[in-house]
Structure formats: C-alpha cells, structure tokens
C-alpha cells in the first residue's frame, strides 16, 4: 500500500485529491452511449448500488481512469479502467410515478456496464 508523506496529509484531507490513474486504458463508451448496468451481486465490496442493476442509462461524461473498488477492497490489483458519469432518469429507476424532470447521475466503472 503506498504511504502518504507527512507534508501531504493535511492538504489531502483538507482539500481532497484525485485518485485518477495515469494509465492508457481505452474507454469502452463515449458520451451519449446507451448502457445497461450489469446485474452484479458480489459478496464483497462494490460501488454499484442495487437500485441501478439492470437499469438503462446514458453516458454523460467520461471521467478518466481509476482503480476498481471491487478488487482494491480485497487485496487485489487496481484493475485500472474508465469511470463515467451515467445519467439514469428517475422514471427508469422508480417507475411512472417519478418526476419526468428528475435524473440521477452516478459514477460507474467500465466493469459495471454493458452496451444497451
């Protein structure tokens, strides 16, 4: 595990720091692409919320390359891959009673998504 030098601790905790990885990994999707969140149910850690699984969304923005929490939480490799802001409409998630004006933007890793 990398250490954080003493002189970096206060700046990182006060101002935050990006976990973006400087790796040349090709993005599977681009802005505007339609995607479906995979129905994954790992026994370990994931950042894929239950209410998104199997739901259809649209890539809003490509954030760049980050480590995959699902492997990093269990002593595994970083599994670097692209992360996206994905837009899901409230109606897609909660049905016809939800507001037609509302959407949820969720950060999603490549491994969480299939092409729709």
């Amino acid at each position, binding site marked *: *595990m*990398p*250490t*954080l030098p*003493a002189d*970096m*601790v206060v700046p990182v*905790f006060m101002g935050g720091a990006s976990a973006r990885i400087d790796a040349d990994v090709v993005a599977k999707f681009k802005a505007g692409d339609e995607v479906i969140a995979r129905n994954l*149910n*790992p*026994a*370990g*850690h*994931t950042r894929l*919320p*239950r*209410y998104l699984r199997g739901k259809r969304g649209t890539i809003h923005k490509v954030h760049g390359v980050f*480590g995959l*929490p699902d492997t*990093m*939480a*269990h*002593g595994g490799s970083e599994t670097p891959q692209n992360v996206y802001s994905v837009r899901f409409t409230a109606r897609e*998630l*909660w049905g016809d009673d939800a507001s037609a004006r509302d959407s949820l933007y969720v950060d999603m890793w490549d491994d969480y998504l299939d092409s729709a």
Partner: protein
Amino acid sequence: MNGIHDLGGMHGMGPIDAETDEPVFHADWERRTFALWTAAFAGGLFNDNESRHAIENVAPAQYLAKSYYEHWLHSLERVLVNKGQLERAELEAAWSKVEEEAA
C-alpha cells in the same frame, strides 16, 4: 455486498435531520478516531476501499443504530486486525478496560 449500507430507494428512514452549526466532531473520541484512521491510512496500512468494506460488514442492526464515527472506529479495528497490525486479544483487552472504567 448486498448489505444494509446500500440504502438507496428504501422507504421509512425518515428525513435527514440537518444539524444547525454542526461541529466537525461531537466528542473528543471522534477527533481521536479520525486522527487514528488518518495516521493508519497515511502510513499505508490499508486503502479507502478496504475501509469502506469494513464498514459494510458492521452487523445490520448495529449499522443503523451506531453513529458515523462509531462506523469509522469499527472499520479501523477490523482492518488492523485483518492486516495483522493488531491482535484480536489486544483489542478485546483494551475494550474490557474501557468498560471497567465506565462501570
């Protein structure tokens, strides 16, 4: 994991009760918990994903009943035991001492 932490979309949890002029820490032990976690994290003993997963492993009823920094403390203890930095017996002895002092 499909745990209690994944609350999105659940009903019946009530409104978020925002505290006016909320202090960063509500008690000194919270400040110390934050400092211990930060020192251990900066020292490279674990990554943030491991820490989050340890919080997810808090027993469901406890998860809902305990406070934010109690989750942090639980996570720190669990991760340090898992990594062999802390003996379970050491931890239990420390907690027994706390309970004796509180009694």
